[in-house]
């Protein structure tokens, strides 16, 4: 019962991530990625500030996880 309850969300998440990843085939040449290199476009431009925010939320809400950990898009992960 427990393994089924674990498997369903994991499979659904893998499917979503797979579908979204396949959209990366859209060709955007390197010279058109100047915007992506800006700090305001990065997933986590200020890790210390992000850790403060997560600290506040995870202590006061019943859920956790789902926050990205890698950057990318411009060869700058």
């Amino acid at each position, binding site marked *: 019962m*427990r393994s089924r309850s674990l498997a369903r*969300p994991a499979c659904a998440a893998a499917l979503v991530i797979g579908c979204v990843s396949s959209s990366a085939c859209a060709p*955007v040449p390197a010279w058109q990625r100047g*915007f992506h290199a800006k700090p*305001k*476009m990065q997933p986590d431009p200020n890790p210390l*500030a992000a850790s403060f925010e997560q600290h506040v939320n995870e202590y006061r809400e019943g*859920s956790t*996880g789902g926050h990205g950990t890698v950057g990318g898009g411009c060869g700058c992960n």
Partner: protein
Amino acid sequence: MQLRAVFATATATALALVTHAACAQAVVEADARGGVYHDSDATTIVTSAVAARAWPHERLSISGRYLADVITTASVDVVSAATDRWDEVRHEGSGGLGYKDADRSASGSYIYSVENDWRSHTGVLALAHDTLDHRLTIGLSGSFVYNEVGRADDENFDERLLGGTGNLDTTIVASKRDLVSVTYSLGYASGYQASPYRFVRFDGPLPGAQIAIAERHPDTRARHAVGARWNHHIEPDMALRSMMRGYVDDWGIASGTVGLDYVIGVGVFEMAILSRAYVQKAATFYREVYASELDYMTADRELATFFDVFGGLRLGFDVRDAGPFESIHGDVLGKAFYYKFFDFLPLPERYGLIAELGLGAAL
């Protein structure tokens, strides 16, 4: 005293490593951040942190961080534990190593956290790989945490809580203006997950008499979360940063989060309008009032049904090539928040303010 010695040694070691790295190569980043949280539930938390990262080699980095929380509270939690008020200090220190080349990055870190009734050790490993001409970044990360749970003024109370988390991340170049990232997290915890200070009341066998017992949570918990982030650049120098997240666990909690930040750059200055909303369905064993004794019982409002909203403003600056510094940056942040609890009698709502100040430099 012993604790002070440990942190003094750790800080001195980190500073020595960073100084050595600074001599070896002129790339060092240092950041400091302070914040104050205050809410209508009589809780104030002052948080201070310093972090440093250095690159002794162009592909290798070392990092360290120290954080302290000073908590003062007379919350309904504390009152229900038959105490007027308590003060507590939590110390957290971490150190890490990182590797990065043109296509790959890897990092590992260790975090130690201690307070008067809790001690934890955490190890984190993360890997990321750029592919499809850097259009797609795939990341894998995992962590393991070992907690020793105690209770103030009770040397016989000694519990353990072990946990692990795995994350799969992808970041995608969707267009020349759009970055999309999707993350799946799986978490599993085993051990003591209740609070030794919270008590649940229910009707006893005698009419009008109530019995209070320490809350009881299940020993295991499996959590799933899927988060998506979409960052869209708007000319000349603005960005819309949006996020959404769905979460479920085997305690019956389901939640959704949405967030939208509007970031405007003007020269070296930046302003961001911040917003976030969260809604949660209660755990299956949560009750507003327990009529009789059950296997699992809780008085934890974070397991109740509630929503919260946050709104705020951040003002920042980032100056490049400032004298000997490669960059100097800083920001000031103010947020207001409101929580509405639908089935938690002692606290139907909570509101408050958060203020933060951050400063940093790269040399």
